[in-house]
């Protein structure tokens, strides 16, 4: 008989005695360097954390190597963060440097704490999903290689969160990131009339379209797409494999900036469109990487201490943002989706 519905392992079974003893009794923490934190509890006990970014996609042998390090230096306990970083939880201060050295030798450099770029949140891409417009892991690798200094050294005005989603389903928290990459299609789906009636439920396909671009075509037992209304979301393809939306000549990436999830100082913000389209250029996406680099360098130079990306833009204004980055502003930047009018400016106060 199969056992079901017993739930995940209990977290307390996965925690060291020190963590359990001081559970909920942490008093303060300090950032020791960009890869190391110390948490001090009411009782005076200390817990050191060494953090390092992982590629998220890992072979079990790599996870086993993490286990080896945790056994050697951390009494057998470690954790991961919400951004796919690994964290080693150390009791004995003397273990910090040897652990870091071994991690580094494995190719995992500690970093991402404090005013840095931490690990880049991302999705599956060509590795494992059926709807992506771009790859995920390859772009993340290329971008992180390029901006690695900002991961290792605290040279930014504030923390900076990068994220990537490989299609408009956006399976990673991209819409509230400082700088986000999103895979976009640019042409409507191609309707395969001969397959639709066999593979798809036509009413569901019609209902799936957010812009009502799809109509039934009873004569052919198929559907037609009104190209004028389609905004290439791929939702129809999700419902119906006979409407593929891929187009290697046209698929690519958009860049959104200025979002955050924390409410500190300024409430959480959505990311806004900075660059509508950059073509796919595997294996290292040079144009995309260069543009991300530019977006980060300009912010690093121009923002004031403590200002997140979106706070910086709010202070200088979007017209200035396009000026200082040199990025073109186009009709694509002006919203015409469902709730667009409140994004239009209705004051005559702006900068030149």
């Amino acid at each position, binding site marked *: 008989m*199969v056992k*079901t*519905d*017993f*739930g*995940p*392992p*209990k*977290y307390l079974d*996965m*925690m060291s005695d020190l*963590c359990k003893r001081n*559970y909920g009794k942490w*008093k303060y*923490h300090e950032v020791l360097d960009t890869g190391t934190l110390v*948490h001090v509890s009411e009782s005076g006990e200390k817990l050191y954390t060494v953090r390092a*970014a*992982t*590629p998220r*996609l*890992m*072979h*079990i042998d790599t*996870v*086993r190597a993490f*286990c080896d390090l945790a*056994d050697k230096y951390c009494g057998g306990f*470690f*954790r*991961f*963060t*919400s951004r796919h970083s690994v964290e080693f*939880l150390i009791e004995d201060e003397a273990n910090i440097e040897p652990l870091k050295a071994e991690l580094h030798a494995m190719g995992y450099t500690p970093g991402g704490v404090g005013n840095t770029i931490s690990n880049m949140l991302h999705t599956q891409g*060509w*590795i494992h*999903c*059926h709807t992506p417009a771009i*790859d995920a892991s390859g772009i993340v*690798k290329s971008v992180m290689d390029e901006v*690695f200094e900002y991961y290792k050294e605290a040279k930014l005005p504030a923390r900076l969160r990068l994220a990537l989603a490989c299609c*408009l389903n*956006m399976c990673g928290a991209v*819409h*509230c990131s400082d700088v986000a990459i999103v895979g976009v299609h640019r042409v409507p789906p191609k309707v395969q009339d001969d397959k639709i009636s066999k593979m798809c439920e036509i009413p569901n396909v019609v209902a*799936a379209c*957010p812009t009502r671009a799809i109509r039934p075509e009873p004569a052919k037992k198929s559907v037609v797409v009104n190209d004028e209304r389609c905004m290439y979301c791929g*939702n129809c393809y999700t419902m119906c*494999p006979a409407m593929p939306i*891929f187009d*290697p000549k046209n*698929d690519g990436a958009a860049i959104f900036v200025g979002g955050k*999830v924390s*409410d500190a100082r300024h409430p959480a913000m959505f990311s806004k469109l900075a660059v509508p389209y950059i073509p796919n250029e*595997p*294996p*290292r996406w040079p144009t995309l990487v260069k543009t991300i680099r530019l977006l980060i360098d300009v912010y690093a130079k121009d923002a004031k*201490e*403590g200002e997140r990306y979106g706070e910086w833009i709010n202070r200088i204004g979007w017209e200035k943002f396009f000026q200082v980055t040199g990025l073109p502003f186009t009709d694509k930047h002006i919203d015409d989706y*469902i*709730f667009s009018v409140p994004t239009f400016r209705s004051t005559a106060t702006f900068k030149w």
Partner: protein
Amino acid sequence: MPELRKTPMLDQLLDGPFPSFVKEIKKGAEKNEACNDLLGQLELSYEEKVTHWKHGGIVGVTGYGGGVIGRYSDVPEKFPGLTEFHTMRINQPAGWFYKTDRLRKFLDIWEKRGSGLTNFHGATGDIILLGTHTDQLQPVVDDLAHEGWDLGGSGSDLRTPSACVGPGRCEWACIDTLDIVDTLTRRYQNELHRPMWPYKFKIKISGCANDGVAAKARADFSIIGTWKDNIQINRTEVINYVNGGFDIIGQVVDKCPTKCISYNPVTKSLSIDNSNCVRCHNCINKMPKALRQGKITGATILIGAHAPILQSAFMSWVIVPFMEMKPPYDEVSELLEKIWEWWDENGKMRERVGELIYRLGMRSFLKATGLPAVPQMVLHPRANPFYFWDKEEVNQ
């Protein structure tokens, strides 16, 4: 064992300081044919700039409606190892804490029954197992069950709830995020494992306004820790920060969104007009040794976040400004169950709860849940006179 696939494009991703996923797949390819084929298929995607995964396909295991996602190559003749290469979502321990002996057994099972490739973790919060055959799905689930690991959610069900590290290692957790997520996950196993709703439903829990799991941005039901009374000030530590050269005016006083902090440079003392504090957490973030949250803690509950498809994206909005979060969290459950009932009854297929509220109005939602309307729910009251009255509210 056939030779490793030639991957000139992917090989360019082996260099550089950031750890390489290609190296990870190659580790697998040395002992597993499916990983070797994955390299080959990915190289083909790099050449052609298009995915080679076919559209889903239903696969499943006994007793569960979700947790497994079908994955089939569209070029199986070239890459026979990927003919079936399904994803499995395994519910993570709260806070993503691991003890190595437990985890090693987990990894051994995946070595025996799958590709050996994983995500720690998927954006859903689950451990993701990337790639196995249909006939291995049931054995994986059985073997994992034996070691105490259960499936996560997928499809139109309660998705695997997740929470920030909270009291496990953070002084800012106003609520016991780990206990809450663990309790709710266990309580709603049926909802998690058997899709029966209009669409997916996500619960995410952050211990404070820093919102470490992006609950407000990603979860239909977002629980965020906060406090009600005064911020605690340690005067000696304030002086230590100032003497250490910390820019208290620039980083704390001027950055307070409600300008309710004042600093006296003569006495080096900080004072906070707590009645005007909105608990944004900035001052505490900047001076963790000097400032601590109040002692009357609980959570703000927000609802409705979902991605841009279909109705534009929403961030969650406030429905309960403050709820005490005492175990066993029955108050949260009562609210959740009322919401699910209303959504289940009124929601259209693939309509998230936030979209339903948008379609029927907060007024219907409040009526269904019995929650009172309070000013904390809005940035400002409406600016138009187009509102509805119920029959009972007007003179007949």
